[in-house]
């Protein structure tokens, strides 16, 4: 253990050098999760999970409460064992290796900062266990104190720290062990909104600086979309979709993902293919809407659910003239919610109530409640999230 440490520490032989935190780079490793299942009693918490997380990736697990994110993370950390399946770090099977022997460290939701140790001793905890030279420990601790912006706080006890500072201690305490993978289980959920944003940005910077793999659990989609390289969306112990933020947002795999990530409008209807190969969504009440079909499996007559993001819809006080590429629905404004630079409109159409977000422009025509309006969008913004 200690040899590994010394080799990877670029400063271990240089003493009294001013520390430059931008040079802290470590070795990340890839994480493979193969056919993992887990039951608690008769309750199936995870069923057949497969994931390939790349070296150095910022990977997020996103899903509603109780979907099994923590359970999966605890298995990667080594606190729990899967009923079936294996976990790989790089290409090594670590399923049966105890948590204190995996080069994986965890940042806990409730900080889990040791209340009886000072900030310094908390951060030094892992190194002291490895019986590393005191001078090196001290230098390392100061490096990581600086990394998490806690310089000068090292003598404080955890009870004297704010929530955000405690979480910084927890992050430094984990990173100082030079793990190949850092697991973060909703690390920011106990903090207030503003602090959450700041710390998230810092986490992202830290990730960029040190370059190890981050696996980040959250049920806050904004957090995940903002910083992740890739995201896995989970529900009821299964993974619904894996992809980059953009892919998941713009091409949600199913209705759940579409609804869970961002907001959406769902349109239901059946597919009709006309004689000249035009594809149309026949809605129950609002007539037919042109739609693009790229999936050959979808046959004429299939019933479809289509997702349409609120900001992709344009709201117009008069009927649009060009209608070749744009689809259009008519409706009446039921409610307007003003929020600074943008407004949200709820428009009742024949089919359903549509949710539209529109950024204000300098000399736009004011739309009021009760106005008759026209909604238009591009065909390509319609995503089929369900068909049968």
């Amino acid at each position: 253990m200690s040899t590994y440490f010394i080799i990877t520490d670029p400063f271990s032989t240089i003493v009294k050098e001013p520390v430059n935190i931008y040079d802290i780079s470590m070795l990340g490793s890839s994480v493979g999760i193969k056919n993992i299942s887990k039951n608690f009693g008769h309750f199936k918490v995870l069923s057949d999970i497969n994931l390939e997380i790349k070296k150095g990736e910022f990977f997020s697990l996103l899903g509603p409460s109780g979907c099994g994110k923590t359970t999966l993370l605890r298995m990667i950390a080594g606190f729990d064992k899967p009923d079936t399946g294996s976990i790989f770090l790089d290409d090594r099977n670590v399923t049966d290796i105890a948590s204190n022997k995996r080069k994986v460290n965890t940042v806990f939701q409730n900080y889990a900062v040791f209340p009886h140790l000072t900030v310094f001793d908390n951060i030094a905890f892992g190194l002291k266990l490895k019986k590393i030279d005191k001078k090196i420990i001290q230098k390392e601790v100061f490096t990581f104190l600086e990394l998490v912006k806690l310089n000068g706080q090292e003598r404080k006890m955890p009870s004297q720290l704010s929530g955000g500072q405690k979480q910084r201690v927890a992050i430094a305490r984990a990173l100082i062990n030079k793990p190949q993978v850092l697991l973060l289980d909703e690390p920011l959920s106990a903090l207030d909104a503003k602090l959450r944003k700041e710390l998230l940005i810092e986490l992202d910077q830290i990730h960029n600086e040190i370059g190890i793999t981050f696996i980040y659990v959250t049920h806050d989609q904004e957090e995940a979309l903002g910083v992740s390289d890739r995201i896995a969306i989970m529900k009821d112990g299964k993974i619904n979709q894996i992809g980059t933020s953009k892919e998941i947002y713009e091409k949600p795999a199913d209705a759940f993902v579409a609804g869970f990530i961002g907001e959406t409008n769902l349109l239901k209807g059946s597919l009709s293919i006309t004689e000249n190969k035009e594809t149309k969504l026949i809605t129950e009440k609002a007539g037919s809407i042109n739609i693009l079909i790229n999936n050959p499996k979808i046959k004429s007559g299939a019933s479809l659910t289509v997702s349409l993001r609120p900001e992709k819809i344009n709201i117009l006080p008069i009927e649009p003239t060009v209608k070749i590429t744009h689809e259009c629905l008519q409706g009446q404004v039921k409610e307007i919610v003003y929020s600074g630079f943008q407004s949200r409109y709820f428009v009742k159409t024949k089919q359903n109530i549509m949710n539209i977000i529109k950024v204000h422009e300098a000399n736009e025509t004011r739309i009021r409640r009760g106005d008759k309006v026209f909604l238009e969008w591009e065909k390509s913004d319609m995503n089929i999230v369900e068909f049968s």
Partner: protein
Amino acid sequence: MNHTKRGIFTTTMVILTLLFFYLPMAVLLLYSFNSSKSMVITGFSLKWYNELFTNSPFLWKAVSNSLIIAVSSAFSAVLIGTLGAIGLRWYSFKLKNLFQIISMLPLLLPEIILGVALLIFFSAFSFPQNLFTVYLSHITFNIPFVLLIVMARLEEFDSTLLEAARDLGAREIDVLMKILIPLTMPAIIAALLMSFTLSLEDFVITFFISGPGSTTLPIYIYSMIRFGVSPVINALSVLIVLATIVLSLFLSKFSKYIINH
């Protein structure tokens, strides 16, 4: 109206109770400074205190026996009980509930039962009755108190701290020595003080177990009461109550773990 009536009732009860608690102690205090050997008040004197300190060798032998037993049994009980409490808190096994009830039972049974059972047990195996058997018996009745106090503390202990420590590379012994024990220390000290006091205080069990040469202070006081009361006992009582007050002040720092169960 109703409210103040209730208030008067409870206040009266509290005052009566406190009088009831402390009048007897005041009487002892009064007699300890009385110059007469009988209970007629004749005048102020310190002679009983003087006699206590200068002319009561058997009493001091009993005191030293008591202290030896109290210290040794308290440490032993805390060692066994603390480990047991950790086991009971974090590991589940078949019949755990039964195990827990049996571990607590010595606390709940009337003392005389344990006294009789241990007496018969020790004689059945022809164990000589001496200070060592007293030591063993005191550990037995102290363990449940330790369990109770330490488990109350572990109850509020955040188990992710243990996981965090293991995650950072701690072996089980590191987890025990660096996290569990330091964080449980207030309860361990409370348990130590409690065991120490209970052991000093125990009469019934010791009465059955002790043989010649293993007289503890309570046994000595008992024989003083039964066979010839000398006013020295008043002086002794006053000192014991004073010591108790000092110890209680000390204990009240840890009382959170003693009262809340």
